[in-house]
């Protein structure tokens, strides 16, 4: 008797638990359907990948995580910019600039092409700060221009071209090999095959997702995205908020550039072409509203994973890299159609 009673109770509590879970799921689904759609597709991709030989190899995982960090950092900044109703096309160029500057500063004052450690600004933490500062300065430019009312698209299109040009001009279009020990150890090193930078990425992710929900600045970002006029009449500074998100975006892109330089052990001005478009795609797949006012960093992460995994999957199947972009386009199309079908009412 006792056992049966116990079982019954267990049954009820289990049912209650499931019901609660289902209800929570339903509420969250109604809140942001694309988010759940993206999780569904992500799950399918993961299962698919596990049955392909090569995916679970240690080397592949290491590179995969590195790529996720790189695109993830850029996409997080992009998400915040898009929530304010803007768009940041300059992130790919900032990544290239900071990547090449990492090498350039390391060999500051030495002859191009000569590989040696002759930098005048040697301490590497200083180099890192300067690189993040460079990203921040681009952010200030973008933020100021869009804050005084120039369309974001036009502003960042300008900086996208200009900063890429600056990266080429500074390095003379050449790669710089051989970075310092700190960059090599931190950006390249890993625990098992989870790179250090991945932990850094997770920390930043948690920080920003708390920042956007729980602080006054975060709330202002959403307010400005939904209706800039209402926000202005409620005493929220448009310029300040725009500057803030663009600086965050620039610094995160700088960070991504630094990790890329560290992984390749090279400063290269040719990296990150089209990265901004991948980042925008990741944001859209996550379900952040392109017109602003709705979304969040945590929504974007599945988008990032999907893009990286889909590219990796193609690579493992041996599909030519010339064809891989088509697949991303198809994915984006599927998401947009699904978002349309399940859009919030």
């Amino acid at each position, binding site marked *: 008797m006792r056992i049966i009673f116990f079982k019954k109770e267990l049954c009820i509590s289990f049912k209650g638990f499931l019901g609660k879970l289902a209800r929570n799921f339903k509420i969250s689904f109604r809140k942001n359907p694309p988010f759940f759609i993206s999780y569904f597709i992500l799950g399918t991709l993961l299962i698919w990948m596990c049955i392909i030989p090569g995916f679970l190899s240690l080397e592949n995982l290491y590179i995969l995580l590195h790529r996720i960090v790189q695109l993830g950092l850029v996409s997080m900044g992009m998400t915040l910019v898009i929530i304010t109703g803007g768009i940041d096309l300059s992130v790919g160029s900032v990544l290239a600039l900071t990547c090449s500057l990492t090498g350039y500063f390391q060999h500051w004052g030495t002859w191009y092409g000569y590989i040696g450690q002759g930098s005048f600004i040697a301490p590497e933490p200083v180099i890192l700060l300067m690189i993040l500062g460079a990203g921040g300065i681009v952010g200030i430019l973008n933020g100021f221009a869009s804050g005084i009312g120039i369309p974001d698209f036009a502003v960042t299109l300008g900086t996208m071209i200009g900063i890429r040009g600056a990266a080429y001009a500074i390095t003379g279009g050449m790669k710089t090999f051989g970075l310092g020990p700190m960059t090599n150890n931190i950006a390249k090193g890993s625990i098992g095959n989870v790179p250090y930078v991945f932990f850094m990425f997770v920390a930043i992710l948690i920080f920003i997702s708390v920042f956007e929900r729980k602080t006054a600045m975060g709330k202002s970002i959403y307010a400005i995205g*939904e*209706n800039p006029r*209402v*926000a*202005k*009449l409620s*005493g*929220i500074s448009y310029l300040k908020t725009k500057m803030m998100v663009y600086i965050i975006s620039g610094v995160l892109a700088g960070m991504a550039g630094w990790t890329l330089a560290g992984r390749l052990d090279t400063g290269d001005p040719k990296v990150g072409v089209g990265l901004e478009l991948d980042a925008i795609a990741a944001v859209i797949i996550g379900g952040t509203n392109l017109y602003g006012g*709705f979304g969040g960093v945590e929504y974007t992460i599945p988008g990032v994973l999907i893009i990286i995994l889909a590219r990796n999957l193609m690579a493992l199947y041996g599909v030519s890299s010339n064809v891989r972009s088509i697949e991303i386009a198809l994915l984006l199309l599927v998401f947009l159609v699904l978002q349309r079908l399940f859009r919030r009412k």
Partner: protein
Amino acid sequence: MQDHLCELKGIYKDYAATPALKNVDFHIDRKEICTLLGKNGAGKSTLIKIISGAISPTKGEMYFKGKKVNVFNTKNAFEQGISVLYQELYLLPNLTVQENIFAGRLPIKNGMVNYKRMKEEARRILESLNINIDPDTYIAQLSTVEKQLVSVATAISRKAELFVFDEPSSILSMKELQVFYKSIRKLKEMGKGIIYVTHSLEEIPVIADRVVILRDGVKVVDDSLENIKIDDIEVSITGKSKKDKVRKKEIAITEKGRLKVELKSICFRNLLEDINLNFYENLVYCIYGLEGSGKKILGKILFGDLKPTRGIIKIDGKVIRLNSPSDGIHNGVGYMVDERANEGLLLNKNISDNIILPCFEKVKGKIFLDYKKIDKLVYKRIDEIGIFPPRASIIVNELSGGNQQKVLLGKWLEIGFILVLVDPTRGLDIETNRKVIELIRRFRKGRVTIVIPSEIEDGLAMSDWIVILHNGKVVKNEEITSKTNKRELLKLAGLEF
């Protein structure tokens, strides 16, 4: 069936089990203007939506021009000749008047647009309506009333027979309304049927042939104007006898507080000239003037949204520079806008987010927002103001117009010791209107409240002091007493009778 232009029989409409319309019969003839009255949520908009085909009734029949309507959709209704003119107009601002009138079916000759014919026809239609607009002007250059009239002309050119106007009086000024009425009467002479939805009782004797009143989804009055007393209408709308009406005098006795705000020789371009005003605490001020008198500009200057070209603003005896709305907010100025959807509220955010928007400083912890403080503050406001339903997590878009207005007021109560309220009773029904007036009276303690109404009755009902502006100058600045004469004030404001 032949005698009515449009007839609805035994209409029921349920929204998710709550009935919006219960057994409503309604008809409209040619050459008739029928005013439709009722509170917010009485079922007016549901009825209009059924006529326009936007929704289909749960039960009941509709006949148009003697034929039964089987399919309810807007396109069908539009092609049949039913035209609904909402407050937001669907005109293309960067095209000319004639292009708007013929949008989608421009007259073509040899594969090119036949501008000559289009202009002729546009002019003919405009003249038939007594509208004096050049068909070549761009829509963006027109005033609100002209835009309304152009959309009427558009409907006529599409052979519309039944016109539904959705509260045009709430967006038009008194002068504009006179022009508007003329065109509506022309429409009537042309043999069209007109349904005119309104909140303002004063319009009824001017415009109506027949009055229909809905209350809680039931038709309570349907009679021609001669058989109705205007005083009874108000009772029929609210369902309460007149004794319930809150008289201003009962809550009026106000002690004048200390001097809070001084304006000294404020000028703004050529729109405001040498404004000198003093505002005392505990009093409610009404600043009235016609459109273009500069009353709204004065409000914006007080808030910091516009910078005066000359002059000094003193708050608590200190000279203050207001360069932006955030400066105004730091100095305790709250500014309640009239365009609540475009400028006042974040419609897709919840009540709580909207209320704390201007006062982040007050609910901030060390780094993060303090959610306990937020909840306390928001629920305090919800209780005080009586927002229904009283839940902070409700999206503002889902609230009724009256409740949205209350949220907008609640947003400013925490920080606003100088409240500038632009048209706080806009688009509200009689009962909600009264509630908002009561609220404003209740919260006047320790505050300077400056009301900038569009209609002087509302302003007089809630204020202790009246300031009248005419062409950017103060022409009257005195206390409101029982002797205050509305007609005289209107005359001073520049209205001609």
